[in-house]
């Protein structure tokens, strides 16, 4: 088997297994960690295709931003801090295994130069172009229609989020001076007539 094929199958197996564990593990932190692994492996596969921009974007956006946010939310949900700290040692083995796997994957893909990975033939975009340039060029020429529409989807997301969460103006307790000067005595207090209660 060619080395590139081996790396592909290696990464794919981990990707599928991680995906399965995301939905089967009962612990939300475990699930989130496996999702990180899945993203990382997917970016490895992209790297294998020499789509380095997409690979880096996936890691930066999904692993760096989305999943960290996700882990924060999971943390916020669990208010019991002691229980969270208790978990540290039990999470450590799994966490370190995932970290080691990622390091190994990075080594496999980035170290491809020394292992003869680059000699294999791959669909070349165009001569001398960087990946970013190729993606950018396509996005603003051939794919401009879906690209613009994707931005509308984001706009709809914003509109929907505002429509579903905004609850009107917050009630302000500050006093309006212009109304305050017009206040009359009878607005300030009221005399109530109350029948006297008898004592038995």
């Amino acid at each position, binding site marked *: 088997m060619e080395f590139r094929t081996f790396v592909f199958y290696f990464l794919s197996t981990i990707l599928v297994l991680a995906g399965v564990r995301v939905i089967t593990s009962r612990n939300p932190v475990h699930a989130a960690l496996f999702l990180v692994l899945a993203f990382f492996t997917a970016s490895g596969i992209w790297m294998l295709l020499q789509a380095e921009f997409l690979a880096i974007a996936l890691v930066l956006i999904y692993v760096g931003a989305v999943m960290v946010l996700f882990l924060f939310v999971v943390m916020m949900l669990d208010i019991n801090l002691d229980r969270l700290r208790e978990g540290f040692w039990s999470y450590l083995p799994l966490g370190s295994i995932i970290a080691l796997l990622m390091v190994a994957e990075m080594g496999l893909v980035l170290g491809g130069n020394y292992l003869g990975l680059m000699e294999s033939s791959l669909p070349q975009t165009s001569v001398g172009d960087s990946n970013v340039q190729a993606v950018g060029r396509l996005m603003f020429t*051939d794919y401009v229609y879906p690209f613009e529409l994707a931005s509308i989807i984001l706009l709809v997301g914003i*509109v929907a989020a505002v429509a579903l969460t905004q609850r009107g103006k917050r009630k302000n307790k500050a006093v309006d001076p212009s109304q305050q000067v017009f206040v009359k005595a009878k607005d300030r207090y009221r005399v109530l007539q109350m029948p006297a209660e008898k004592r038995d």
Partner: protein
Amino acid sequence: MTLAELQFQIPDLRLASAEIFMLLMACLILMLDLLVKDRKRTLTFVATQLTLVGAAVVTFATSSGEVAYTFSNMYVGDLMADLLKLLLYLTVIVVLFYSRGYIVEREQMARGEYYSLALFATLGMMVMISANHLVTVYIGLELLSLSLYAMVAMNRDSVPATEAAMKYFVLGALASGLLLYGMSMIYGAAGTLEITAIAERLYLGQVDRGILVFGLVFLVSGLAFKLGVVPFHMWIPDVYHGAPTAVTLFIATAPKLAAFAMVIRLLVNGLIVVSQDWQTMLIMLSVLSMAIGNIAAIAQTNLKRMLAYSAISHMGFMLLGMVTGVVGGDARFALNAYSSSMFYVITYVLTSAGTFGMILLLARNGFESEEIDDFKGLNKRSPWFAAVMMMMMFSMAGVPFFVGFFAKFSVLQAVVAAGYLWLAIVAVAFSLIGCFYYLRVVKIMYFDQPASMTPIAAPLDMKILMSANGLAVALLGIFPQALMSLCAFSLLRSL
């Protein structure tokens, strides 16, 4: 770097001017609404309706009747797209008129965002109708779905609505996943995402059939979910029932037109060469939908839920026309079959708008009027609207000389012409079962005693529109030929 170096042709924006107009106006209305102080949002409402009318004018003015591509072949403009878009605007206009009273009475929904989301959903459907690229189909679908999820959830304090939105969202995301997986497999097999190019390569035999059919299974599953046919129908009853009736009306009408266009674009325009494979899948979906839809509807006491099951069975019936296009490699009947499906879906949308509109007509603040029992003795409260509702029910059941009858008739004609006699018999048998629950509504309206004699307090414009809707169902039943030949002509010029 100049454009010439990029080897890029500037797209012909004129062709897509309706979409551009709709997008600009939707964004403008979003900002215009900030200035509106009126709680009823009359200005936003009027602006939205004018936008839809304007889009219709633009579509009509730019329609050339020729098949033309732009945006690097991602967008296709043809007569079928123009006709479906015009009907789409009309549907949305009618839907917004019907839902006006319902929305104004409910504080959570009486907001400008409702109208903006409706326009964005319309834009998504327009994109789907004119798509010639798998990415465009998907993006249009997501634009539509995301707007709909938000509209379902808009009534935040209602637990059923939130539940419906959640179910719709999760299942919709799953279906999008299936569709995307199918699309990526087809890309893997054909090496292109452009629908006409896929068809070309299939025709030349440059495609790995094994992978293609594997992707096709997922593609059909995704389509089946969006159409809401068995076994991908689970979301329909819950969403129709749980969503605010105004939104149910929206979901039950306009997206059906877009879903039909999506089926035509993906399966007929793109994958007609493997029609043998997808026709078999559609036959199974169709028979199951007619069976489960019609039988489960009998057991319902909630009118919205009953109509949801009826929608499942109608979509199954519509698919019958799609399965009879190509018989043993012979595409002689294709035009007839697909235009009968198109006629079916258009008339279903018309009737469905009327029935859900009737629920809205009877609803008041704090009273949804969504149980079948709420229609008890409607004849005593308002003979005219009872008659309109009766026409809708007769049309849905397929009673002769209402439009639903001709829709069913033309589909069955196509099925028999293609030689699937057993399929026609099964379809008629399930339609007869379906008659029971439609006629039960009529019986309840005419022969039961009303629970209250409160007069119908709907605004005049809605009453007029509802009457027009009822008359359209009756008149199209007497003169179906014009619409039928319009469907056939538009497909002839497009396929």
